[in-house]
């Protein structure tokens, strides 16, 4: 049980690192199993990595394994984040720090936009699916509809698109 938490402590939010640790270094899962668990974790609500950690922990040690793996996953990043925040607060009054945060915040939001574009390209979306992307985007970012509403309408619509495309 211990090795699980230690192993999970190290890896960050980057999926590539998680795959490296789980499949290549620790050999906890085969490539196929990993893809399955990741796939299910992505379909479920909640952080992908978190869902995966829960399922992986359960596989080895049951419910307790899930809890410990989760703790192992969250602990170090939380401590690091608090350290960064504390340092930041300490110097937040400095003009330089304020401008730096502004610059980093701007770049960070760009990162998310870029990630979305990259994901969309990697998925090789068909035109109807691009339509789904755009409607979801407009509904959330421009019209600011509640997310529940968007999920409840867009997921069935998207399912319909997939079903229709598979039939042809």
């Amino acid at each position, binding site marked *: 049980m211990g090795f699980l938490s230690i192993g999970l402590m190290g890896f960050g939010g980057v999926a590539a690192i998680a795959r490296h640790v789980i499949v290549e270094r620790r050999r906890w899962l085969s490539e196929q199993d990993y893809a399955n668990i990741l796939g299910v974790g992505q379909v479920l609500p*909640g952080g992908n990595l978190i869902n995966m950690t829960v*399922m992986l922990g359960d596989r080895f040690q049951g419910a307790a394994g899930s809890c410990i793996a989760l703790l192992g996953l969250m602990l170090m990043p939380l401590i690091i984040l608090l350290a960064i925040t504390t340092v930041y607060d300490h110097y937040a009054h400095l003009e330089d720090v304020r401008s730096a945060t502004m610059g980093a915040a701007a770049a*960070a*939001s760009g*990162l998310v936009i870029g990630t979305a574009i990259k994901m969309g390209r990697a998925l090789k979306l068909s035109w109807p699916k691009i339509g*789904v992307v755009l409607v979801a985007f407009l509904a959330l970012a421009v019209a600011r509809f509640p997310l529940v509403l968007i999920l409840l309408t867009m997921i069935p619509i998207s399912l319909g698109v997939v079903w229709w495309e598979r039939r042809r």
Partner: protein
Amino acid sequence: MNGDLVLEILIAFASLSFLAVGGAPGMIPELHRVVVENHHWVTDAEFAKLFALSQTAPGPNLLIISLIGWRLAGLLGLLAATAGAIVPSSILAFIVGRLMERVAKASWYPYLKGAIPPVVVGLLLSSGVVTARAADETTLAFALSGLGAAYVVLSQRNPLWILAFGAFTGIVAGRFGLI
């Protein structure tokens, strides 16, 4: 009084937890609505700042929620926010994990697997735009966001570099009175 706030944090983020389809980034706009627009827990600029800070640390993206909890009510707030954000969805993941074999073989699973990603991309795009709107008050910031987006699309390198570049540009611009 503080207990009430902690409870409120727990409930707010626990209900968000179920909406985080495709991971934490997709729920940023909803998070923004809840903490900035509904509860007025943090300001727009503060939200953008916390988002940037949470991006600098390794680990799951939803750490921004922990950070908001920390800001609001210290350690208890942090614990409540983090638990709220991960416990409900984790219980669901646990149950589905047990049923994994059946889920992966179910006839509807390929459909769901095909249907979720386009929605997620739409949500992710919104997240970027919503945080950009919160963060970008100047033309320079707007340009930095564009650069950040281009960086991710065009390169495989670690995203921290562009954050560092943004911070550096911010300092230089600040020193020369450009912002």
